[in-house]
């Protein structure tokens, strides 16, 4: 690979809003429930099944309907299914870690497993939102009952108030025994949660 400077780089295509009409027929049930593998296969992802119940809210507290929500997380052993970890013996063959759903009303339920501790990171799920009126925005959700939150470098870079906004609360159990966590993702206004800049690096 030849070293490249900033000026060698091609200019990226502009991101644009997804608009209100992301096709519902592009939905894939396998991406909405990562706590199981394809049906008919004797296989089960490792880890504790959880359900993340979320509400996407706009600055007036109204549900942000029609939002496309994407999830990215490590497996139960804290390993991401990315090229960097290819060949890692802790890869779970039955778990990829990428999820996607369209929150028709603005509420969603994402079934998955509790992500594991990853090096210095507390269990977390990266959430990407594509919604009408905005281009892609990203954040990361934590779990309020995890002790490791106290030493997570991302969480600890935020104020206590902001940390709480990114912490899903454990609220009961589903009929199937999954732990239920709830989170309000306020996109704008008074209770706006922190969103992160994955284009700009510190010091750039």
């Amino acid at each position: 690979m030849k070293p490249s400077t900033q000026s060698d780089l091609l200019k990226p295509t502009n991101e644009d809003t997804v608009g209100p009409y992301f096709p519902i027929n592009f939905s894939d049930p396998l991406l909405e429930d990562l706590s199981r593998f394809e049906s008919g296969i004797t296989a089960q992802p490792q880890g504790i099944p959880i359900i993340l119940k979320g509400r996407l809210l706009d600055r007036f507290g109204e549900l942000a309907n029609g939002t496309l929500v994407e999830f990215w997380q490590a497996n139960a052993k804290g390993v991401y299914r990315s090229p960097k970890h290819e060949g890692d013996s802790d890869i779970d063959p039955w778990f990829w870690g990428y999820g996607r759903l369209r929150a028709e009303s603005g509420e969603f339920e994402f079934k998955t497993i509790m992500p594991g501790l990853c090096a210095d990171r507390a269990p977390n799920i990266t959430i990407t939102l594509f919604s009408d009126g905005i281009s892609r925005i990203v954040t990361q959700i934590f779990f309020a009952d995890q002790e490791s939150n106290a030493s997570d470098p991302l969480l600890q870079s935020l104020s206590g108030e902001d940390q709480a906004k990114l912490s899903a609360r454990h609220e009961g159990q589903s009929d199937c025994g999954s732990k239920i966590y709830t989170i309000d993702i306020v996109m704008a206004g008074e209770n706006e949660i922190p969103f992160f800049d994955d284009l700009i690096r510190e010091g750039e």
Partner: protein
Amino acid sequence: MSNSGRQLEIGPTDNTSDQRTPRNRLRLIPEIARESFAPYVPQRGLSRQNEWDMTRIAADLPRAQGIAIEVSGKLQNERGTPISNAMLEIWSANHFGRYRHIEDHSNIPLDEHFLGTGRVFTDSEGNYTFWTISPGAYLARPDIGRWRPKHIHISVSGGGSRLITQLYFPDEPNNASDPMAILMGDDFERNIGKPYETPKIDVDSGLNFDIVVGGRNAVYFE
């Protein structure tokens, strides 16, 4: 030197943008946490054989109304490396400006022969091609007479690449007043397709749209 992230802007005259755009500056990600922000999308193979031809609902059905076009281009990253086997999810309004989406409640007519959604994959050199009907513009804000210019939605995913964008058409009168185009400023030009002639195939004309996926996933650029 920056010690905070970008300030997102609200699309002018776009009510939804006003409702949903974060007001606080984006936060910087500590270096140690960057990798966790770069999703790696698994390969998905969900495309029917005829989906590349959106000018008809299925291969055995008639053509939809309007002007049939080919859209093609190369998908690459900022370093010019082609991105192969990525999925493009495509959706657009019909010739009249109506989506066949259950939530599009406008009075604009549907076209019985137009579905308006399709999926294609890039080949080993990062090239993609699909046919569709040149979409109609539609009135987005009747109260102020603002139209959404002709556009085709394209969502790119595969491996470290993730992008949702829109392809616009050259010389369209409504391009200049589009809220997102206004925010893009001079960069808007890169989202406008370049016309080409298509004498040998069964469409009216072609539109070239090379797509460059930006740098947020630099972790995985080989």
